[in-house]
């Protein structure tokens, strides 16, 4: 295994860790706004790390370009979706939870 491969592997695993964090946040956080926050940020960081890892692994500029594009568009889509969902929740009259354990 080359050094590049090991770096890629470490990045991929780190990406997975972020995905895990996002999912835990989605399941454990108390209200919809916190969950949004967890998911949108952690998952996109995870996606970024995975894309970088795969780019190193493939060692091909064309592939790297596609991966970068996927990540950027993913970022944009996640941002807009999170915003829209939060807006919907807000207009539905959801009040952010102040503190305390998850409701369910």
């Amino acid at each position, binding site marked *: 295994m080359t050094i590049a491969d090991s770096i890629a592997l470490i990045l991929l695993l780190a990406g997975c860790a972020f995905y895990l964090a996002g999912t835990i946040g989605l399941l454990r956080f108390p209200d919809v706004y916190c969950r949004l926050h967890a998911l949108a940020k952690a998952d996109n960081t995870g996606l970024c790390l995975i894309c970088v890892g795969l780019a190193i692994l493939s060692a091909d500029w064309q592939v790297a370009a596609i991966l970068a594009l996927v990540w950027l568009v993913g970022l944009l889509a996640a*941002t*807009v979706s999170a915003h829209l969902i939060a807006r919907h929740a807000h207009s539905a009259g959801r009040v952010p939870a102040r503190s305390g354990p998850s409701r369910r």
Partner: protein
Amino acid sequence: MIGLALDLLIIVSLIGLAIQSINAASLFRGILHFVVLGLAMSLAWARLDAPDLAMAEAAIGAGVTGALMMIAYRRLIEIQPDQESSLRPPPSRLAVPIALAAGALVGVIGLAAIQAEPMPALAGTAVLENLGSTGLGNPITGVLLLFRGFDTLLEITVLLAALLSAQAVTRQVDLDQSLTTQDPDTPLVGALLAIVVPLTVLVSVHLLKAGGQETGGAFQAGAVLAACGVLLVLTGRLGASRQYSPLVNTGLLVGLLSFILIGLAPLLWGQPLLALPGLWAIYWIESAMMISIALTLVLLFAGAGSLKRRDHG
């Protein structure tokens, strides 16, 4: 080994999502599960070595299907907010045995089909043998346009028939309002459109061009383009219209018309019916079909006969 574990997991999620999309406690959850099931299906296609199908499933499932279901759901709850409270599913003692029998039948058939002595797939072999002389690299595109082009011609006719039938049953009142989000000027939406719209157009053109050699093709490209149109309708940039528009109608039919006319033309110089004269014809028909497929899907979504541009803020 790990590949098998992966397949198993994909299958478990497929099954779970399928159960949930039919049996979820509310219709909304059912829709979500069904849309997600489409994504999981594209993973399954990827594992089954069918990237063309993965792409078709992703393009249609992530874009148009979800939007169609959501809009239909919205129209339903506008009529009756409480869609299912009064519904008691008819008690049927036979349902489970019938379902088990049907599933078992399919399973036994499938297993037997795998185990059976592999017969030479004559048609498939012929496709792979003849592909070299056509200048195409993707055998599926070869099948869809050259060897079994008539299927594809009829397939876009079916799509057109679905649109015409849907229009025939769509009530022609209050066409205009209920498609867009309440506020087309929500921040960020403009930025999203500014990037995603050109990108979808680019990607669909790329898929079209790539379709001859690798994964892609008119349907995938058209579905992506349709998703772009749906996006524009949802954000209020395009509106449903009742006005006859020659442009929209021509776009709707350009695929079918090009296919028929280019398919009939060889008869004039003594060639067989539907024998496409060269690669340019394939690319022309594919492009025309892409436009028609995209417009058909957008019109199916909008539930209207035509589209018009809409000004906003």
